[in-house]
């Protein structure tokens, strides 16, 4: 991926020469180039629009939700979709649409917080391991290998088992579970980058290691990190929903999509609407991040297009 950047950078140099600061026009050129490729990718644009829709719903939840998500109405229990309750009501007579609207806040928060934990923790470890190499690299990466020896959500489950069930613990658990993946990605990118001439040049003019890491190497790792973060958001959302479904995440009466499915599952043979809407909400948001991630990858790395 770094070759692409070096190439596009090199191509833009003659254009930017003498026309304002070089770094500005070259990064503008890169951004424009990226945007041009990105918007041609229909799936990515749809993904971005779906995410924007979800974020808007989450922000406007108090305005959009027709009912209080916690308000119980015992005379309207497990009613199917109607003009009054578009998505029907649950076993406590709560309006499902309102709960799904409020649930988008929880889902986005889980995704963003857990990915941030993985990104900052794993990113920092990966940068240090890749840049310094040797003993530091070996120690960090062997610990990451051990963390990756736990299949699927099991690592997150073990952490929740210890920390106790709850929304915040799920965010921490899913975040910690993402750390080794981010660290491997960043380390790999840094290993490729640090042999480049610009690192040697920075060292030659007396830059400190910290400065080289944060000002010279880090900006070049952003493209793969962006792609991976989007795809990781999708996985984090699925894992957190699974943990909530197992009763280890959000606790009743929180309007979490996974927990809603878990509570509705005893009644699905009589009220299938209890499974349709929360499940579809999870799938659409996950789908959006997967589509965006794929699109970003295609736009940021043209070599991968059509593959």
């Amino acid at each position, binding site marked *: 991926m770094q070759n692409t950047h070096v190439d596009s950078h090199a191509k833009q140099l003659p254009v930017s020469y003498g026309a304002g600061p070089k770094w500005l026009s070259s990064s503008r050129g890169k951004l424009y180039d990226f945007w041009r490729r990105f918007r041609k990718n229909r799936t990515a644009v749809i993904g971005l629009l779906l995410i924007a829709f979800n974020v808007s719903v989450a922000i406007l939840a108090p305005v959009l939700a027709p009912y209080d998500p916690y308000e119980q109405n015992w005379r309207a229990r497990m009613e199917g979709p109607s003009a009054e309750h578009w998505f029907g009501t649950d076993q406590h007579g709560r309006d499902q649409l309102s709960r799904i609207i409020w649930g988008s806040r929880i889902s986005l928060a889980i995704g963003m917080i857990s990915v941030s934990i993985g990104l900052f923790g794993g990113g920092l470890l990966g940068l240090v391991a890749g840049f310094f190499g040797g003993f530091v690299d070996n120690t960090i990466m062997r610990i990451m290998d051990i963390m990756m020896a736990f299949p699927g*959500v099991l690592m997150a489950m073990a952490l929740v088992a210890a*920390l106790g069930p709850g929304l915040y613990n799920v965010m921490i658990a899913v975040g910690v579970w993402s750390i080794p993946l981010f660290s491997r990605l960043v380390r790999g990118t840094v290993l490729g980058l640090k042999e480049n001439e610009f690192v040697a040049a920075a060292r030659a003019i007396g830059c400190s290691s910290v400065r080289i890491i944060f000002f010279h190497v880090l900006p070049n790792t952003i493209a793969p990190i962006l792609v991976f973060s989007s795809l990781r958001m999708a996985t984090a959302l699925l894992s957190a929903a699974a943990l909530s479904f197992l009763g280890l995440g959000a606790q009743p009466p929180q309007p979490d999509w996974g927990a809603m499915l878990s509570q509705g599952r005893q009644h699905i043979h009589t009220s299938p609407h209890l499974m349709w809407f929360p499940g579809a909400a999870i*799938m659409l948001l996950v789908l959006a991040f*997967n589509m965006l991630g794929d699109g970003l990858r295609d736009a940021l790395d043209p070599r991968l297009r059509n593959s």
Partner: protein
Amino acid sequence: MVRYIIRRLVLLIPILLGVALITFLIMHLIPGDPARVMAGITASDADVEAIRARLGLDQPLFVQFWEFLKGLVQGDLGTSLRTRRPVALEIQERFFATASLAAMAIAFSIAMSIPLGIFAARRQHSAGDNLSMLAAMFGISAPSFWIGLILMYYLAYRLPLFPPSGMYGPPWTLVGLQSYILPTITLSISSTAIMARLTRSSILEILRQDYIRTARSKGLGERLVLYHHALRNALIPVITLAGIQLGALLGGAVVVETVFSWPGLGRYVVSAIHYRDFPVVQGGVMLFALCFVVINLAVDVLYAFVDPRIRYD
């Protein structure tokens, strides 16, 4: 090759030690007190102390870890706090249900994904290609427990073709096989989708290579080029992914087993978490990790067999 396998086996030891340490630490640095949980809320402090001494929980952490490791090597995973039975025995009783389900799911995934990937690659950019890749995208994004509930609703409640939950025998009996079908499909949806996408992109990549152009310029038919020349190389990454997916299926089984009340290890571990039955969680997580690591090793070795370009020196 033998040297490579031996080296990998030796490298397994620190990984497994690390896994044991992490599992042990997670379970021992928790806020709750296992001795109190085992004794019950009504027990006196003296009873709790007695249990703590019996379980060795009053020993320093490294002594406890050493005892835990000694137990692991001897196949002793402690006693369940809830049932008071040996954890190893309880795990053994449930292991077959999980392993057979994962094996069925990976077989189903391979059988579905490779033809789907070939179909899509042969008709790149056609409606069929777009549709199957869109379906794959949905398959990756849909939560497995949701798919499970949908299948259960339509194929067990509305149309009573399969039992809605439970395992009614081994898969080689008709009744048993019927009970395997819904959990198997549910568990394999995501890996089928991932593998179909990889098969497609891998074939497309190979078809652009020079040796394929050579084969075509010799006048070979498209079918021969695809199935005889391209597919062999295109499937190498798919094999690796199948191995990785088998590991992921073990993790996914935890969720699917809960949906279908499957008497496997995953559901057992989940219920142990709810009851704070730490020896069971510890033993279950250890076994899952052990299987995962061994599968990964097996995949790497298989990879070396199928791709002679790989040198492991």
